[in-house]
């Protein structure tokens, strides 16, 4: 299902940033960090104030019409042909993979396809389009990476975030042997099947803790809200942060 | 004539048509001459089958040793098959040799003996497959199907020259689609199960042991 993006012919000078509603409300610092990283690479970063939600929650619950109405608002908010950078593999997957499906047979199908082709997940864009190089300014730290299901399986993000982490000289990356296993978030799944979701996140925490890392870095705030919320409830003293925030804090542009 | 048939087919025909896609290429493995037999052996051995190199003239002696080591007293063979002829000639006059039992009746008259008395069965394999470590049994009136299934030990004789790289290769080379017999079985080891805690156990219903005798060309038989 994954439709890995292709590198644009020319390095763009202006990009859109789609913050995602979860980042907007709960983790704005992650979004801001993503925008700063892009800006530091010399890009003009445009954040349309008209943006809201990618529409995934309604689509995943089967409310396609409601989702389409919201998606159309995003079409309107991102009119220029610039790349759209998303600090979430899940929202990016919705926009890149599912918009064309959601609008199949609709009058604005072509618009949905064109929009989808402009969508990039942040870490992928940093690695493949901007070839980001970082100088580590931080203290030695051991971290582990949490990969989101949709970043891996819809956006085809495999090693990019870990490559960025490994490029930081003072950062030791300990991989989680259960990295590919879902954390149990799944949007409404976490409240429709709360006990199954709870069992999944409990196992996820155990596997994250077992890495011995002092911090968990991730590229998706949905997973982070789930995992860090469960860690906090369980009294696990581990910090979690979005990749963009982590990179911005540690890395100086080389 | 048949209502269910008519209704099922008409519902299927009423459904919207979908494209008939072309079949994309896939790459079944190809082995060099030397690697082919090595693969055949490795794969079989990984499944707890034994593979022995033999030559066309002396394999019955080799088999004798293998069966003696296992205490086999009754060996089932095809009725009037070349394998049977060669065995009879090689073992004749040998009082300690296992009893040779021919599958010379229909199963209904032979069931008791087949199910409870026979220790081992020997069949000819029409071909081998290197990729998966398999022999192909193409049962005939002479060498019926149960010979390779009911006795606790199954011995398959296969000529090295008939070992193909893959099932795909073999099927194409032998034109299976035009001549499917009553039954063909691809056998890749002794009967096994992992139904209890994914722990492998052998001989759950069929043979506990599979012995593959590869008839090598005289020069290379070792």
């Amino acid at each position, binding site marked *: *299902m994954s439709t890995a993006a292709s590198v644009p012919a020319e390095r763009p000078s202006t990009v859109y*940033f789609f913050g995602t509603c979860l980042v907007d409300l*709960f983790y*704005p610092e992650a*979004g*801001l960090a993503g925008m700063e990283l892009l800006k530091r690479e010399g890009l003009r970063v*445009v954040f349309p*104030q008209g943006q*809201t939600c990618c529409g995934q929650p309604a689509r995943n*619950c*089967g*409310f*396609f019409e409601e989702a389409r109405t*919201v998606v159309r608002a995003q079409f309107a908010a991102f009119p220029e042909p610039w790349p759209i950078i998303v600090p979430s593999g899940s929202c990016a997957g919705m926009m890149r993979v599912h918009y064309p499906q959601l609008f199949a047979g609709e009058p604005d199908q072509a618009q949905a396809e064109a929009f989808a082709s402009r969508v990039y997940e942040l870490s992928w864009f940093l690695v493949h389009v901007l070839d980001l190089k970082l100088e580590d300014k931080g203290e030695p730290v051991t971290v582990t990476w949490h990969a989101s*299901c949709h970043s891996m*399986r819809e956006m085809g993000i495999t090693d990019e975030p870990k490559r960025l982490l490994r490029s930081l000289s003072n950062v030791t990356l300990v991989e989680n042997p259960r990295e*590919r*296993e*879902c954390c*149990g978030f799944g949007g*409404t799944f976490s409240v*429709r*099947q*709360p*006990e*199954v979701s*709870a069992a999944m*996140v409990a196992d996820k925490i155990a596997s994250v803790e077992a890495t011995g890392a002092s911090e968990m870095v991730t590229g998706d705030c949905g997973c982070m809200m789930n995992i860090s*919320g469960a860690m*906090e*409830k369980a009294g696990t003293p581990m910090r979690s942060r979005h990749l963009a925030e982590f990179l911005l804090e540690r890395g100086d542009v080389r | 004539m048949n209502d*269910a048939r008519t209704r*099922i087919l008409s*519902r*299927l025909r009423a*459904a919207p048509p*979908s494209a*008939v896609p072309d079949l*994309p*290429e*896939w*790459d*079944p493995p190809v082995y060099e001459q030397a690697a082919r037999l090595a693969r055949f052996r490795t794969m079989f051995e990984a499944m707890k089958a034994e593979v022995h190199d033999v030559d066309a003239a002396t394999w019955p002696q080799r088999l004798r040793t293998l069966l003696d080591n296992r205490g086999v007293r009754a060996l089932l063979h095809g009725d009037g098959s070349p394998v049977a002829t060669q065995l009879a000639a090689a073992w004749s006059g040998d009082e300690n040799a296992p009893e040779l039992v021919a*599958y010379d009746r229909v199963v209904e008259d032979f069931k008791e003996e087949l199910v*409870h008395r026979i220790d081992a069965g020997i069949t000819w394999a029409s071909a081998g497959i290197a*990729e998966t470590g398999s022999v192909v049994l193409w049962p005939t009136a002479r060498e019926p199907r*149960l010979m390779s299934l009911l006795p606790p030990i199954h011995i398959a004789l296969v000529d090295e020259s008939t070992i193909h790289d893959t*099932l795909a290769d073999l*099927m194409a080379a032998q034109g299976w689609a035009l001549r*499917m017999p009553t*039954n063909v079985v691809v*056998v890749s*080891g002794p009967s096994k199960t992992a*139904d*209890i*805690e994914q722990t492998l156990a052998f*001989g*759950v*219903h*069929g043979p506990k042991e599979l012995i593959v005798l590869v008839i090598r060309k005289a020069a290379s038989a070792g």
Partner: protein
Amino acid sequence: MSAELKTAAHVTNHGNGHVTVTNFAGRAHVALNDKPLRANFRRAMDGLMAKRAAQFPDAGDLAKLRARGAAIKERALARLPELLEQLEARCTENGIKVHWAETTGEANRIVLDIFQGHGVRTVVKGKSMVSEEMHLNAFLGEHGIEAVESDLGEYIIQLAGEMPSHIVMPCIHKNKMQIGQLFAEHIEGQRYTEDVDELTAAARRVMRARFAEADAGISGVNFAVAETGTLVLVENEGNGRMSTTLPPLHVAVMGIEKLVETMADIPPLLALLPRSATGQPITTYVNMITSPRKPGEKDGPQEIHLVLLDNGRTRVYADLELRETLRCIRCGACMNHCPVYARVGGHTYDAVYPGPIGKILTPQIAGLDVAEDLPHASSLCNACVEVCPVKIPIADILVRLRRESVRPSASQAVKGGGSGWTLSEASAWTGWKWLNAHPLLYRMGTGVLSALGHLIPPSMPPLKAWTSVRTKPKFAAQTLHQLARDKGFDDE
């Protein structure tokens, strides 16, 4: 119409059209608190995932093979009616009698008629998921015919009076202590043991006698080849070969979607099925049956019957998106890799087909009114989609079924469509739509949440479910919208 994909023990037809529905959350609660069960599944699934991965070391080769496998099944489905006719013609020429059944009831009746016509009293069975759909053993039992499962796993659960919890490894939920106990209780002269070889030997002893005395054998079909009329069965134990060779009569049951066009389709599918299922390069036996015993041959059944079962498949077929469900080759890789299945086990699904494939198949066959909760019992993590050897878009079909359950398609593609609709949920999404389709409203709303969100009590649904094991999400003091503007990021 039917709830035939649900387990017999739990389907209660109240006679007024109301059928007891699946209760995934309730059953999950029980399973999640069953420590041995969770350990059994975790151990088994971890092992199966590792074994499968070892079988497909090269991603490029696997991609080509999956594309081939998917295309083979896609072609077969596109040509299904003509291929079914071709299969029937070839089988008939070969001496195999072909029967058609629209419902499981019809299929059961066909099998019973065949058996009664031959005075059959005992039957040995190879593993067959379609016969589970039919609840065939129970049906035959009611008519005085004893059907004995001969696959070790199926035999174990038959002794325990349970349903399979996995489509390939039916007793995967049990450990050797439980099985040792079961054998000691049910097999005469068998002492309690945890030794797997000894347990296996005990089963061999019991089954040998059963095979020898059986009047007929029943099997499923993994692939039926239209070109030659050949039935292809894969197995490791040899019980399938026994059931289809030793008794004088063989009845095979198959879903109408199990067809392929040609013999040449078999090798790539065999390269996918066992490797995806159990991580083995091939099964011990690939058994290809093309005709009953011919004159002069000394064994094999004198008669073979093939029962083609619809049981709702034609309805699935009628919708092009849902049709992709029918590509399934029943390998079970989707459940082996499912993080939900690994934790709750197969019985939680309360259906013949558990796991991801069950979550899309059961609601389509039994109806959304029966199994509305199954499409929602997924985090849409796509692990199943990633490993499916025939590339069934399981996650997309789950979402499609969620849609059918709240807003049925004009074609009423799925029975019981609309049964998941509630006013409260629909209103919530309408509200969500208004908020998110109107940027000004959105900014006002999110601004208010930033300022006052901390006042929302954690006991309010759905926060209550969320906070059972997590802290309440903390609204940031300022939204990203506000921060972006403050930091001078352009708006256009």
